[in-house]
């Protein structure tokens, strides 16, 4: 299965996302911000970083890149898309996901090993987990506080679209401890912590992050065989 990882100017975790895809058995494909060609990928990851320096507002410029036009269109027809950190911010800016990610409540960049609770396995990227499963995954961001209006938050809750919540302390002040959400169809997921940094015991706090990548590969294989 071909998993595309987009490199925007200022993307930082693109190499890590590609390594995670490879380690979990997928074929990683480099996508370039300025090229609308998705190169026949079966899924796309928008990696962490500071696309275009994040100078205007996180993800606000990346949203208008040629590759994003293709991704928004493909997501509409079911292409699995995972936005990690800056990728999550871009997905919100692109309106593939509701709400926004704003400056951490404590105003600091924070990097820590964060415990999460899986709230929904009903997505292309979390099918291999079980509800209630606890994951230890690094979080690192300055603008990771998820916010939305009450109606949206209620809708996310009611629709089972909150994919993961922070456990044992909310690292950034996110509303309702939200760490990850999905779209209605379940193919688009945005997550603030970094599963790509938790795929190897040697370099991560756990290997819990691998589940996101094996989930999408399983999802794609299932789709391919049916």
């Amino acid at each position, binding site marked *: 299965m071909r998993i595309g990882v987009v490199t925007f*100017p200022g993307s930082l975790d693109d190499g890590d996302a590609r390594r995670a895809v490879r380690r979990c058995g997928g074929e990683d494909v480099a996508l370039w911000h300025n090229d609308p060609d998705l190169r026949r990928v079966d899924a796309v990851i928008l990696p962490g970083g500071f696309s275009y320096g994040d100078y205007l507002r996180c993800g606000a410029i990346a949203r208008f890149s040629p590759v994003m036009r293709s991704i928004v269109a493909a997501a509409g027809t079911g292409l699995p898309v995972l936005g990690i950190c800056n990728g999550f911010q871009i997905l919100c800016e692109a309106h593939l996901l509701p709400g926004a990610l704003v400056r951490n409540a404590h105003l600091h960049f924070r990097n*820590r090993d964060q415990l999460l609770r899986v709230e929904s396995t009903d997505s292309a990227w979390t099918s291999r987990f079980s509800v209630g499963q606890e994951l230890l995954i690094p979080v*690192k961001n300055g603008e990771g506080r998820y916010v939305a209006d009450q109606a949206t938050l209620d809708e996310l809750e009611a629709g089972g679209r909150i994919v993961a919540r922070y456990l*044992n302390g909310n690292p950034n002040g996110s509303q309702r401890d939200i760490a990850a959400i999905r779209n209605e169809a379940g193919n688009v997921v945005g997550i603030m912590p970094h599963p790509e940094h938790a795929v190897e015991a040697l370099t991560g706090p*756990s290997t819990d992050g691998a589940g996101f990548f094996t989930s999408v590969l399983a999802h794609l294989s299932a789709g391919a065989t049916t």
Partner: protein
Amino acid sequence: MTTVEEPPMAAVADFDTVGQAGRTPDVTQPYAELGLQEDEYEKIRKLLGRRPTESELAMYSVMWSEHCSYKSSKVHLRQFAEKAPKSDRLLAGIGENAGVVKVNEYVAVTFKVESHNHPSFVEPYQGAATGVGGIVRDIIAMGARPLAVMDPLRFGDPEHPDTARVLPGIVGGVGGYGNCLGLPNIGGELVFDPCYQGNPLLNALCVGVLPVGGLRNKAAAGPGNAVILLGAKTGRDGIGGVSVLASATFGADSSARRPSVQVGDPFTEKLLIEACMEIYAADLVVGIQDLGGAGLTCALSETAAAAGTGMRVTLDEVPLREPSMAPHEILVSESQERMLLIVEPQKASLVLSIAARWGLLATVIGEVTNSGRLVVTWRDETVVDVPPASLADEGPVYARPMREPSDLPLLHADRAETLPRPASGAELRETLLRLAGSPNLCDKTWVTEQYDRYVLGNTVLAQPEDAGVLRLDEQTGLGVALSVDGNGRYTRLDPYRGAQLALAEAYRNVAVTGATPVAVTNCLNFGSPEDPQVMWQFAEAVRGLADGCLALGIPVTGGNVSFYNQTGAVAINPTPVVGVLGVLDNVAERVPLGLRHEKDVLFLLGETRAELSGSEWAHVIHRHLGGRPPEADLAREKALAGVLAAAARVGHLSAAHDLSDGGLAQALVECTLRYGIGAVVAFADDVDPFVALFSESAGRALVAVPRGQEKAFLATVEEHGVPCTPIGVVGGTALEVRDQFSIPLDELRRVWTGTLPALFGSPGPAGLVEAAASSEPAGSVEPAASSVELEIEVVDEPPAAAEPVAEAAPVAEAAPDGEPAEEPAPAGEPPVQEPPADGSS
């Protein structure tokens, strides 16, 4: 023809040209305001055979400044080369942008530490940010991809209001730049001492990797080659003292007096890294140099001087942020995120297209010539015509007067060993807690949480570990370990020994991970070189460091000198910061510092003497600085490193931690709190527990050895001739010193983690602080039962344990039956627990 008496600068042009300089030899020039001495100015005039133009004067003033010319330090720094031990690993050494060390046949690593002290005091965030940016470009210039950064930081009194201004800004700047650049921060230092109040130290280290054949240099070889400026536009930032020229010439125009601290743009630097990597991969450059201090002036003159060529530069081509800039401003601007590339003409368009792909400006601003002159034109007039080496290499060199500080004999006489000591177990407990919660020894999470340590996915160890460990090769596991250390108090008491102790500590920190130390970098932070007492401290420290490197057999590969760290007549404690690089054949074998397995046996390697002068104990408890610092026995350090590497390689170490600031007590605090697993320690009857816990004797490490491997471990120890004492057993939920005290880890953790948040503000809104304290490290499993009584029989009471610690012989030697550390029978079986997930299983 009539001669008209004109004001010298008038009419012809609003800038000074070479022609004008020839016509108006007697113009008064503001050389003194620019920091040049009268004889230095005369030397310039003699060199050029005329007065310098404004632009030339600006160039000489920055290139001959202490910062660029090393004019006061040069005569001493030579020792690093003269005394350098033979090393076949060294590919590039002192004088290059950074030293380059061969790791194996194919892979090389480059690393360097640099200061950005003064800017970080003036404008903490940008000063620190551009400090990181500058050292990263040095690494790029060697042909390397930057891999990680480290940040040794020093501040004044933690409770001083200005520290609350400077510290958050500097930490924010280091993080803001490094995080956005995508480089993990893998370690550093955080030290407080009132001597740094007006002179905080921001040192930054960067390490990068390159193929052995991919080494780049700065020589602008090949007349006809294009000179390309790559990266950000040039603005009025960072012009510093040269703004004197602007005001002297054009009147006090306030718009020309911009802040002299540069502003960093990490996004552009990230693009610069990627563009340079593509340019290297396509082999498109002949030479390359970063633009840092002294901006274009430095890059142009050094590249031409290195090749012995000349250069013709059209300054009008330089992309400007402010079109009103004068030529001398363009030449000395320290605008960030710029590189100078020397490129064969037919490859120039390829370089420009790679730059365009990354959205970077790249401009041909001139060409290499064989004239031996650096000629710069502006609006078709020649504003600079000088021999490049006169700027780069032929600056003044001073052998400044030196004198031992007059207060040193008094300081030496005032020994900390004579201060009142805690006498009872309760007092020892109280002392340990006060030290653990003191600003220099407390938990540094408040700072390190603001840095990304995961990006790039090769961080195997990062702070709070003794050294950062990076994987270089995913297939083989080849990697490097790095540590930076310094101790200004030791160096104040004895600069020769203090520098060696800094070296020894960094060396030891690398060694405890199991790595083999191979090379050294240094950042020498001192007061004014014009003060003979400071100059003596500097000379002694350099001599100590050079001798130390020779003794350890690892060369200094490069470094940086920062003088004038003083406010008024009071200089900072002399603070050489030393970085050591080590090699690990397989990073999977690295040894972390935290205790992980119940029942592992704790051994103390090395010899403990009653060495308390300059110690953290004397500093915290008595506000005392006096006496002589601990002995620096480098042969012992070498032997210790040998044991650690050998034992790590065969898996005999489940944990290892260097003993330094705060002694054994602090090592135990850090080892137990890392994963929340306690320890019981016992000292022999004739050992003074206070000395055992708080002495800062060098050359020591605390190690945990899995049950069943003690014998093999002790055999290795004996082979290397390192003193070794069994001192305890891992387990329980407290740190206990038998017959003295016991501290539940919860209490210890509260004390250790509370300090920085209390000083610099809670790191988050209500609820976050507590969570932070209880989840660090996240995933750690606290043993359920409290206060487990562990009975340890220390090695069947071998004679070694009964010896006074100061005379401890190697254990294996002292235990004739050769049966050390047999399974001690715990009286109460501690609860069996799973080792916490720590990424090492």
